[in-house]
């Protein structure tokens, strides 16, 4: 049993450890470690294409996570006020959104967007007075929409769990102490759910930043970091890719650990 567990963990983590290790390899060949060097990190960071992809990923990540956090939090707060039946339906829908495979979301979003864009573009063309009507097409907007919708479900689930653990009591107490619903929200509810809102943002950002599958379908001509890495690999795995992977790994770990810290169970001191 113990051997099996060890094997599973080795299987999971050896490739990751190797990638990090070889990102510091002085040699070009991934089969032998010739010496320690950080030259590949320098190379990666001075690669203009890579930097553009990184910038794209950051734009998509921040925007989609921001929107997902805003709407996800509002959805979580709104679902508190509907009947139990309606809430159950939405809970199921959110849970479904999270378990649907990325490929399916990618294809579905692509098909839907292409249809909508086709209709919208012919409509715009028919009413546009000038020669070259603007055309809606895949790009930042479509990646942000696809990521935002998916991660909104994530944020909603996280914030909802926190709201549920708060209970109605302190909201009623605030109302009893003459606070208007607006004051109650900003003074009492918001400070209590803020950590989970931030955690939701971090997870949404991490998801968007790391996502390849959905972005691949809807990115159009834009290149995000995972798409760049995928394209580069087709030309062979270089230590530069290892360096990128190592950096993404560290960034993601920091974000996810921060999210976990924010979501930690604080019932012990409340």
């Amino acid at each position, binding site marked *: 049993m113990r051997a099996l567990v060890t094997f599973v963990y080795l299987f999971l983590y050896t490739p990751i450890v190797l990638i990090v290790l070889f990102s510091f390899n002085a040699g070009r060949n991934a089969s032998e470690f010739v010496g320690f060097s950080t030259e590949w990190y320098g190379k990666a960071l001075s690669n203009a294409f890579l930097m553009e992809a990184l910038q794209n990923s950051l734009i998509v990540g921040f925007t989609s996570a921001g929107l997902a956090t805003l709407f996800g939090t509002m959805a979580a707060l709104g679902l508190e006020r509907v009947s139990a039946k309606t809430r159950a339906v939405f809970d199921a829908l959110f849970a479904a959104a999270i378990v649907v495979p990325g490929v399916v979301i990618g294809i579905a979003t692509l098909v839907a967007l292409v249809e909508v864009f086709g209709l919208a573009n012919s409509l715009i063309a028919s009413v546009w007075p000038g020669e070259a009507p603007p055309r809606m097409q895949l790009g930042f907007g479509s990646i942000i929409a696809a990521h935002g919708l998916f991660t909104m479900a994530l944020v909603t689930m996280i914030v909802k769990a926190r709201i549920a653990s708060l209970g109605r*009591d302190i909201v009623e*107490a605030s*109302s009893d102490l003459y*606070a208007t619903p607006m004051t109650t929200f900003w003074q009492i509810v918001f400070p209590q759910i803020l950590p989970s809102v931030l955690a939701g943002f971090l997870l949404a950002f991490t998801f968007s930043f790391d996502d390849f599958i959905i972005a691949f379908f809807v990115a159009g001509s834009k290149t995000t970091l995972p798409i760049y890495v995928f394209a580069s690999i087709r030309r062979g795995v270089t230590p530069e890719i290892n360096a990128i992977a190592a950096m993404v790994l560290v960034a993601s770990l920091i974000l996810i650990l921060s999210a976990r810290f924010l979501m930690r169970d604080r019932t012990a001191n409340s």
Partner: protein
Amino acid sequence: MASAHPNDIEFRSVTKAYGAVTAVRNINLAVPKGSFLALLGPSGCGKTTCLRMIGGFEQPSEGSVLIDGREMNGVPAYRRPVNMVFQHYALFPHFNVEQNVAYGLKQMRPRIDAREIDRRVQEALSMVRLDGFGKRRTHEMSGGQQQRVALARAIVNRPSVLLLDEPLAALDKKLRSAMQIELQTLQRELGITFVLVTHDQEEALSMADQVCVMSAGRIRQLGSPQEVYDRPADLFVADFVGKINRLNGRLEPGGQMLRLADGTALATSGEHSLPAGPVIAALRPEAIRLSRQETGPNGLRGTVTHRIFLGSGVEYAVTVAGLGDFLVTADRGQGSEADLAAPGDAVTLSFDPAAVHLFSPSEAA
């Protein structure tokens, strides 16, 4: 918030229904200014719903609730001159004690000067004997201390009415009786009307000056603690407020004699309006005298089966052939152990005719 109105709270034909479930049925109730009312009843009797309708957390389905003579239908909780002490305190976890207590004052418009707020917060804290606790985090405090913060947070606003929702339920027995005295003292000092919800009859009887016994959404009896205990309006009240021994019997024509199942005749006070026929008699355990001699009228012969030493008194279970088990509480008196009856002893149970409460069997709940 003084007004000429004699009643702080009034319920006029109030009904509250949740879908098909009616929690409160057609309640009429007036709570005079400065009184201490206890809403007493088993869980699900509607007492908490009544309290929440005063607080503004629920709105009546029919009828109206008045505070200070003003109709409150549709007025939200934050515009009502009442404050509530919640069962689980509901302290704000991200605020310290002072911030919790100051919260209500900070919401008041026109704004209250910060120094005045601080002065009143300190005054309220010292009133609940929490001087020096202002900077503490609430989760660092014991249950009893949190309870007092909740109390200070409510009384600091000088509401016309203070609502207490099972405020002592989460405290241990010793702390509970200490808090009972404190609440009563506080109520007298402040002169604020208190409305307490509890399922604990001892709590209601010891603190309130009016007890409103409820069951199934209705008021069964409203009266002083003595009235409710000594002259219960019905069998439910007799049973819920204190312990009773229940006897089935028939009232003889004339209404003076009660014939029990085993044929024994008991005298009653005659102060009732029941027709002859089957009745239920209720006897308080402490109204029964137990002696080892064969004595007196209204006597039943029985055998002691259990003796429970309570410290301050003694409780006996006595079996009377043909009638079942009786619970009898007796003063311990100055007697030594030899003076107490022991299991197996043959004893006589006797009682004053006035101690026999008679109820029609149809109202047995």
